[in-house]
């Protein structure tokens, strides 16, 4: 490029800058009124929906890796895409039957957090699933303590009751051996303090799981990143998650249970895989 061409370009850009400044001066100043301010709950939702939330979820495939190993195609080159879709459906359905009631209970009755944590631990029959749930739950407590707490602590009376429950629980996590820190009830508790509406918190719990499994599928070379986004955007997935939240809405934690028994086997046998890229 010649000296002359560059000088022309600079002159052109300067002219555009002047024009833009002039237009800004002429424009009416009451734009802010027409613009509705995003609510605080949207902001909170964005915070917990962020895939960069440091829960370490990317380390877990929630049984996908083991499932794929148990369903090796006869030809090594064959695609496992249809198997993946079956698995995602089963996995979401299992999560909604086993864990979602604990999310709802953690949100609604924060004072019961220690019992919920114990009962969910008692209902988790394999070490692999237990490890994954606890690692993410404890990470969520850490994020709350270090990042969110100073900004949300005295938001409302309800939130402060939950906050008391959580600070007690968080202290017990460090001292008592009987406290585990499972993700589901803590997810409910933390989203209640952030004042995320419960239906959204529950939906997000499922969505985050779907996103984790889909992301694991990309890394396990089942599908490409564009296909992955298409799965997450699909109407079927949305419909399934909406119905699952709806169905779990009135399920008591005592009645949470396994609807896909072979899932426990896939998860339990993850430890027996010859090669692993995930922790679950």
């Amino acid at each position, binding site marked *: 490029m010649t000296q002359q061409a560059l000088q022309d370009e600079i002159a052109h850009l300067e002219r555009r800058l002047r024009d833009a400044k002039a237009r800004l001066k002429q424009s009416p100043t009451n734009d802010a009124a027409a613009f509705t301010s995003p609510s605080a709950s949207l902001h909170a939702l964005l915070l917990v929906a962020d895939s960069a939330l440091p829960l370490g979820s990317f380390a877990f495939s929630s049984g996908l890796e*083991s499932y794929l*190993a*148990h369903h*090796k195609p006869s030809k090594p080159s064959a695609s496992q895409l249809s198997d993946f879709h*079956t698995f995602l*459906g*089963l996995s979401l*359905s299992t999560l*909604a*039957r086993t864990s979602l009631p604990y999310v709802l209970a953690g949100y609604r009755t924060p004072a019961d957090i220690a019992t919920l944590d*114990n*009962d969910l*631990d*008692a*209902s*988790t*029959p*394999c*070490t692999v699933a*237990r490890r994954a749930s606890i690692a993410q739950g404890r990470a969520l407590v850490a994020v709350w303590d270090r990042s969110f707490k100073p900004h949300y602590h005295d938001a409302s009376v309800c939130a402060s009751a939950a906050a008391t429950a959580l600070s007690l629980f968080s202290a017990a996590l460090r001292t008592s051996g009987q406290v585990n820190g499972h993700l589901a009830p803590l997810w409910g508790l933390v989203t209640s303090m952030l004042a995320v509406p419960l239906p959204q918190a529950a939906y997000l719990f499922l969505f985050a799981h779907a996103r984790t499994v889909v992301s694991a599928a990309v890394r396990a070379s089942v599908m490409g990143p564009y296909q992955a986004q298409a799965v997450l955007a699909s109407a079927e997935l949305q419909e*399934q998650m909406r*119905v*699952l939240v709806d*169905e779990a809405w009135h399920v008591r934690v005592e*009645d*949470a*249970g*396994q*609807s*896909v*028994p*072979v899932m*426990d*086997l896939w998860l*339990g*046998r993850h430890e*027996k*895989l*010859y*090669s692993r890229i995930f922790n679950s």
Partner: protein
Amino acid sequence: MSFTSPFGASTSKPGQGSIVLDILPPDKPVLRTVSYQYPLKLVAPDPLPPPNYVKDADDSVDPAIPRLIHTVFLLTYGGGIVAGDSIDLHVRVDSNTRLILLTQGSTKIFKTPSPELVSRQHMTVNLQQNSALVYLPDPVQPFAHAAFAQSQVYHLEKGRGNLCVCDWVTSGRSARGENWDMYEYKSRNEVWTAEETGKRRLLVRDNLILDKHGKTEMPLSWRMDNYSVFGTVIIRGPIFSSLSKFFLDEFEALSRIGGRNWGDAVQPELLPHEQRRYERQQREKTDGLIWSAANVRGFVLVKFASREVEGSRKWLRDMMKEEGSLLHKFGERAMLCLK
């Protein structure tokens, strides 16, 4: 004129039953109560001394080993559970006693005229300290269009009872082409501990829900991944410690999934137990049996699934026999349903 029955009003309800195993001082275990109402039936054969009692008696009698082990068969009239039946059994096992519960053939669940009419079977077991229960029944076999919910709830005094219980279910009458065609099958296993303070704490909950409720559930047969049998074994307590350890060790010794034999490793001469393990693992492959074992909260939880009922039955029997302590401490009867 009204008619007044000359008999007192019955206090017992249909389907109720009670088993109390007590110690008659100084040390004789006796079945104090065995009561039942239609459609439940309980049969208690004569108790037998445990195989290890006689042997150990030569030098000194171990006070921890009871003189007799009692067995009770849980039966139903007609050999199955009909729509609307409701069974409620309470079992109490006193300190230092041991009880074996058995069934006679699979528990058949007949079809229900309407999915809302659910048959039920509840069992509550109270285990005092140092008592033990072995409950290795035949599987439950819900026929097509059956609706059934059962629960087995175990209360351990101060968490110190000993348990070895199995709960398994099959896909129905596979010979008639039934493949998980029931309306609903639910089975709940819970173990609670009662602390000195009177507070109860849940130790383990294993809740299986096979139903077609809801719009999102895929057909049951899809969810089962071509398996016809699913089961859970729950083991706890010092009496079963070597059995627990055996399951964990054998799980550890399973060959890696997706591992390959490159043919460059020299096959060493196998020790007898390694040879038996190798043969069992070959049978697992032919029977399409997969299993896992986990050590959680003081329990060993074993999950298994297989293509056919006999595959699981054979596997359970192989495992228990190979380890041997169950036979040694409770005798052949403990494994009668696995024959």
